[in-house]
């Protein structure tokens, strides 16, 4: 490989050095890494908050947190995890870094807007911290249900304002990705030659752009109601609280697809590479991403079967919910079929991807219980729901994020982490995860509601076990992060294609140079054609 300076050594714009070369950078890769550090920070904060919540729940009665502290803690855990971690995690870090490379270009279409969206993200985080030191963080849950969010004395306005700012960050990223894919794609790359991760980001970006304004407007309306007593949602002032729930979920349900679609995209990249075999059903996976983006925008009221909305609405939304399950099932089948007759090499990213498929399947299948109108009534707002969405969001998106970290780490930093520690961490996280969330399904079926800091004595057993699971999971996450960051002390010696991948990021040096491509990229007719891949040295030494 010829000597090319990586983007770490070549700031853009070139006049800035040191910290300024990061804070004012227009390079999509540096912005991606700045997101990575900020997102990791918030993720670890929210993980620890979750651990404290679980500690409180290990024994009945008030133990480490009082009721109001517990309420603020779970709200903070939810707000951070949703708005500061899961929504931006994959698009803002790996999307920013790899989307332009995947389509053979040197940056996103609006680099300055890209930097602005990072600053909006940071501002949202700062506002969230700020609210902690004013009147105490909001105690409404991340859903901010009216009228409680209007009548409570805690600082709901600041928390809502933080979510408002973060919405803009998300919209700008979506806007940037859509324009980039349309305008900057290599001329030789047709729509059906785009890698699946980028396809999933493209589908996601439309949802980000179209659904986020709904929640932004809704949050403005909540603030107007709090500050100016406008009667929009509060029945005491002639408003309609169910209207709030509709508006909120009209964004927040599509938002779960904003969270999971890029995760599915990551898995669709990783599995073919380590099976050294084309993804099974490329077109079906693209179509299912688009189907999820469209159908997923039409199922929001399945969060509201008990809310008092009409039975007709329950019928329609329950039916549509089952329809949206199909494209997810198609993806799972395609991933497993990709493994058939492959030449499979076990590596930490593949291991995490397989864990993803299992955990996400559990999450998806328990979603069927929740989608069924009658069965939903019993488990709605119980720990069953808590377990379900952690299986999809953490077991799904979270594990896809871990897998993406392990898959693209050598490309982003030019260094390889230790495999043994990576496996141990992955097993700890997955095992702890099962121990942590499976008891919650049972607790939910027994009737334990969510958002309870204290509970009836019959729920003591399950909560006690779940606490141990949480401990193992947190230890695993700590080990995983330590292992990854420990690799940064090594020499930067990674060759361009350690795994044997065929998408464009594996044709350029690790880490990539400032303008990504040294020579004009060669676009393959079919994006997952592995016939040209021969065993690389790294495969021989690390594999088998």
């Amino acid at each position, binding site marked *: 490989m010829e000597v090319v300076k990586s983007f770490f050594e070549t700031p853009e714009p070139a006049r800035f050095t040191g910290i300024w070369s990061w804070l004012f950078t227009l390079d999509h890769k540096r912005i991606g890494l700045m997101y990575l550090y900020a997102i990791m920070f918030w993720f670890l904060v929210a993980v620890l908050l979750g651990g404290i919540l679980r500690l409180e729940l290990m024994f009945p009665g008030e133990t480490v947190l009082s009721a109001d502290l517990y309420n603020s803690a779970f709200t903070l855990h939810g707000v951070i995890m949703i708005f500061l971690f899961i929504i931006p995690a994959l698009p803002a870090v790996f999307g920013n870094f790899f989307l332009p490379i995947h389509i053979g270009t040197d940056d996103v279409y609006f680099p300055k807007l890209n930097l602005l969206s990072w600053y909006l993200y940071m501002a949202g985080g700062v506002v969230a911290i700020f609210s902690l030191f004013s009147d105490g963080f909001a105690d409404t849950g991340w859903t901010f249900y009216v009228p409680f969010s209007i009548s409570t004395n805690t600082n709901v306005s600041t928390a809502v304002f933080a979510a408002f700012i973060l919405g803009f960050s998300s919209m700008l990223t979506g806007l940037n990705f859509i324009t980039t894919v349309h305008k900057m794609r290599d001329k030789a790359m047709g729509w059906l030659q785009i890698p699946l991760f980028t396809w999933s980001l493209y589908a996601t970006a439309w949802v980000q752009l179209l659904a986020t304004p709904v929640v932004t407007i809704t949050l403005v309306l909540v603030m107007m109601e709090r500050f100016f007593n406008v009667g929009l949602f509060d029945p005491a002032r002639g408003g309609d*609280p169910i209207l709030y729930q509709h508006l909120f979920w009209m964004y927040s349900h599509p938002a779960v697809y904003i969270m999971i679609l890029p995760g599915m995209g990551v898995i669709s990249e990783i599995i073919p590479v380590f*099976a050294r075999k084309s993804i099974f059903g490329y077109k079906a996976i693209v179509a299912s991403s688009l189907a999820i983006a469209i159908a997923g925008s039409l199922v929001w009221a399945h969060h509201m079967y008990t809310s*008092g909305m009409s039975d007709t609405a329950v019928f329609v939304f329950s039916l549509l919910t089952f329809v949206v399950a*199909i494209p997810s099932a198609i993806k799972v089948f395609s991933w497993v079929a990709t493994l058939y007759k492959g030449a499979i090499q076990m590596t930490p990213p593949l291991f995490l991807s397989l864990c993803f*498929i*299992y955990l996400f399947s559990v999450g998806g299948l328990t979603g069927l219980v929740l989608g069924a109108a009658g069965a939903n009534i019993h488990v*709605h707002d119980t720990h069953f729901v808590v377990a379900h969405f952690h299986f999809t969001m953490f077991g799904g998106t979270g594990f896809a994020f871990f897998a993406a970290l392990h898959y693209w780490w050598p490309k982003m930093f030019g260094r390889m982490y230790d495999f043994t520690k990576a496996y141990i961490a992955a097993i700890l996280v997955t095992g702890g995860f099962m121990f942590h969330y499976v008891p919650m399904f049972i607790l939910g079926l027994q*009737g334990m*509601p969510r958002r309870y800091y204290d509970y009836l004595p019959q729920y003591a057993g399950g909560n006690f076990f779940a606490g141990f699971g949480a401990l193992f999971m947190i230890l695993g996450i700590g080990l995983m992060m330590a292992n990854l960051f420990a690799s940064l002390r090594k020499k930067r010696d990674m060759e361009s294609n350690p795994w044997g991948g065929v998408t464009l990021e594996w044709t350029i040096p690790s880490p990539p140079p400032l303008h990504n491509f040294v020579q004009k990229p060669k676009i393959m007719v079919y994006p997952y054609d592995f016939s040209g891949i021969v065993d690389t040295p790294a495969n021989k030494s690390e594999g088998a």
Partner: protein
Amino acid sequence: MNDMINPVALVDRSFYFIIGFSFVFLFAITLVMIYFVIRYRRTRHPVPADIRGNWVLETAWVFIPTFIALAMFVSGWQAYTGLRNVPDDAMEIDVIAQSFSWIFIYANGKETENEILVPLNTPVKLNVTSADVIHSLFIPAFRVKVDAVKGINTYAWFLPEKTGQYFFQCTEFCGVGHADMTGVVEVVSKEEFDEWIQEDDEW
């Protein structure tokens, strides 16, 4: 009375149908996945096949899951209609949720807080509303849950078929006392209930 279908049975049937199928699916997909990873590991199977798709297979796994999903939907919808269609002869009780307790008002004006007494084998209809923020009445034993919203009247019904005590809880987050909004449904014989309902209110 005995020909009345208790919606609890419908809800449970729907649940077992969905979860039963899900277990089969989950085990199948996991076993196949693990088998492929072991069978086609690179050391044993170094040359991969080039298979990019299969129309028959892909069509099959669109349509078969669609039919199964629709069957699940129907089972869920049947259970839901069971929960919504109140028998005509149901005994009505008004329920008012407030931060942080439940008030129950019987037809004759008798009021209770955080506990209700109901007669055996008589369908009970709860007319629910809230005095302040949103609460939700959840009686796990009867698979009943309905939000209490100020300005809106919602309802739920159940058929108590065994005497005993059944707990209920608030399931819509409502503030500091959310976890304390629990209470008990006590199912007693008709005679005992008639005696109790005639008693003077102690409060």
